């Protein structure tokens, strides 16, 4: 068959990294990215982009670990190259602190990040309200830089990108052989996935360049993630809240919580507020389907529902999605050669 035509719907970290993996594994494919939003207006742009995985109940731990490891390894190489600053990838060390010792003192990802260990008594003294902590070095993907870098790499391989609101994946059947659904929270409407729900997160991005270490409360609600130019302060986890408007009292609450973890933040300037809707699901939907209607077929690969852990596993799920695209192509070639007989 002629070069398979692949449309990737969605231009957040999942859409762009998936498009890149498809280009890498299928050089003959013609790949197009369609999205109603591009950086700096995607959910990914609100996120801090720190590589600390979230445990997803519906995915086996060894798979989550595999995805995290692939992502970490991929980004570590970029962070240690001349591309690092343009791609927005950098190493960052810090602490995850707990008010109460967690059940699991050593998480599944402890040997993927660098230098993981429990915090010493002396280190814990900096956090008088917390009695247990973990110290490690991980990576951060700053957005917009990372997304813009992915876009640049895609354009360099000939991938076209269009601003377009896709209302129904089927509408693409006449232009494309394969559609990859990386619509994130948009999949709720796009494919009617009732199991997908938003977990609203509000964050502040402040100018505090003297903060060089991350601090995360193990409850996942309060965190300080220094990026290249701004420090992300968070946050909230509001289940099923669809509002994208910043809430001023939440802003104050986040700022207060972060200042109590890191007092020097009181002097932070230039506060910007951002909101993102984490596309949450009991597991990432990573599967392929064949849709048919009136004798016409459309291969669909889903890659959405990464919740709070998108950045941490993006490369791993992108590679898996690209593999599924490969299966679709094999299926199409099989059926087209059958058609020739």
């Amino acid at each position, binding site marked *: 068959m002629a070069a398979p035509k692949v449309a990737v719907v969605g231009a957040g970290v999942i859409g762009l990294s998936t498009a890149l993996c498809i280009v890498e594994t299928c050089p003959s494919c013609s790949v197009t990215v369609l999205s109603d939003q591009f950086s700096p207006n995607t959910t990914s742009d609100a996120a801090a982009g720190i590589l600390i995985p979230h445990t997803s109940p519906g995915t086996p731990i060894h798979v989550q670990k595999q995805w995290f490891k692939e992502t970490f390894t991929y980004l570590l190489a970029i962070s240690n190259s001349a591309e690092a*600053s343009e791609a927005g990838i*950098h190493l960052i060390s810090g602490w995850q602190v707990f008010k109460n010792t967690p059940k699991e003192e050593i998480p599944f990802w402890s040997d993927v990040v660098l230098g993981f260990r429990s915090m010493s008594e002396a280190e814990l003294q900096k956090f008088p309200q917390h009695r247990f902590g973990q110290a490690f070095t991980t990576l951060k993907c700053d957005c917009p830089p990372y997304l813009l870098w992915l876009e640049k790499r895609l354009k360099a391989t000939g991938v076209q990108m269009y601003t377009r609101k896709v209302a129904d994946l089927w509408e693409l059947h006449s232009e494309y052989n394969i559609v990859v659904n990386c619509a994130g929270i948009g999949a709720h409407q796009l494919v009617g996935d009732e199991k997908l729900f938003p977990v609203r997160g509000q964050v502040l991005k402040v100018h505090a360049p*003297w903060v*060089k270490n991350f601090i995360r409360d193990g409850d996942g609600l309060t965190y300080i993630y220094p990026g290249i130019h701004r420090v992300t302060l968070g946050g909230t986890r509001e289940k099923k809240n669809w509002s994208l408007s910043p809430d001023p009292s939440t802003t104050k609450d986040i700022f207060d919580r972060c200042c109590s973890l890191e007092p*020097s933040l009181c002097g932070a300037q230039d506060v910007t507020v951002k909101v993102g809707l984490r596309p949450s699901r009991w597991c990432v939907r990573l599967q392929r389907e064949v849709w048919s209607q009136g004798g016409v077929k459309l291969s669909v690969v889903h890659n959405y529902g990464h919740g709070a852990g998108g950045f941490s596993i993006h490369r791993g799920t992108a590679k898996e999605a690209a593999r599924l695209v490969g299966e679709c192509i094999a299926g199409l070639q099989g059926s087209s050669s059958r058609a020739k007989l």
Partner: protein
Amino acid sequence: MRVAVIGAGVIGLSTALCVHEQYHGLVPSLEVEVYADRYTPHTTSDGAAGLWQPYVRDRGNLQETLWNKETFDYLLGHLGSAAAKEMGLFLISGYNLFTQPVPDPAWKNIVLGFRNLTPKELELFPGYSYGWFNTALMLECRSYLPWLSNRLRQKGVKFFHKKVESFQEVSDGGVDVVINCTGVRAGELQPDPELQPGRGQIIKVLAPWVKHFIVTHITDSGIYNVPYIIPGSEFTILGGINQRGNWNEENSAQDHKTIWESCCRLLPALQKAQIVEEWSGLRPTRPSVRLERETVRHGHGQAEVIHNYGHGGFGITIHWGCALAAARLLGSILQERKLTGSPQPRL
């Protein structure tokens, strides 16, 4: 009771502050003055990156290790305060890299979270087979010196912008005690063959994606004569020059090349960094810090001098411990002159 501090780098200003804080309440007649030909941002301290880290090889001087610890603990105590940002004080983590295993440093329990590097971490630094990770402090003098100056001015300390030519000149003017914090040029006031310049050159770049310090060490290469990268609050400092006996404060193109190439090799992510400034300075290098009293006799009299100089490449690291020690020496002078009514305060 007039005390004159000569020198307005980190040593001079911190000693002046320490002395004023300790004795102002006890000696009502105490007047502290500062004399210097160079003030911030033109002192040696201003060029230093500001990383708290003693030399990695113990010079066998337990006294200096204690002064380093006093300084670290003092600064750590200020971390959570409202003053920290104004002082230019913050926590920073990072790497010390070696080409072979080395014993742990004397300061391993002073810093936070000291540990050896894991094999995966060492893979990031080809050519280095051993190393340490720890969290330490940064104290940026371009903020700290103005902060010290403001505190001193608030306390009524007077500043004089002049080059002092001799101890006699100052004591003839009516000063009772001179505290000599003249750094690398102390030899101009009193010859000291043990004091040598350790010329350093640094490149200041914009690289806010670098969040860790990286200091390399190659045996027999001398400290700070091999690449180091230290991220500050605004700029990242690249260095790796330490030329003993070189008094030249001009930037050298050859040294620039050495620093740039070796730092980019160490951290490829630096290649896109924008160069902002270049600077050279002279570390006041000495086998040990000179911190002692001396009665300097001259012509028709004598001057009571407390020496506090020779802090090499660890002045910021050791400054407060030395300031406290200098203040103790002043205390013994005050005691001798029976100027303190009450018994010697516990310092």
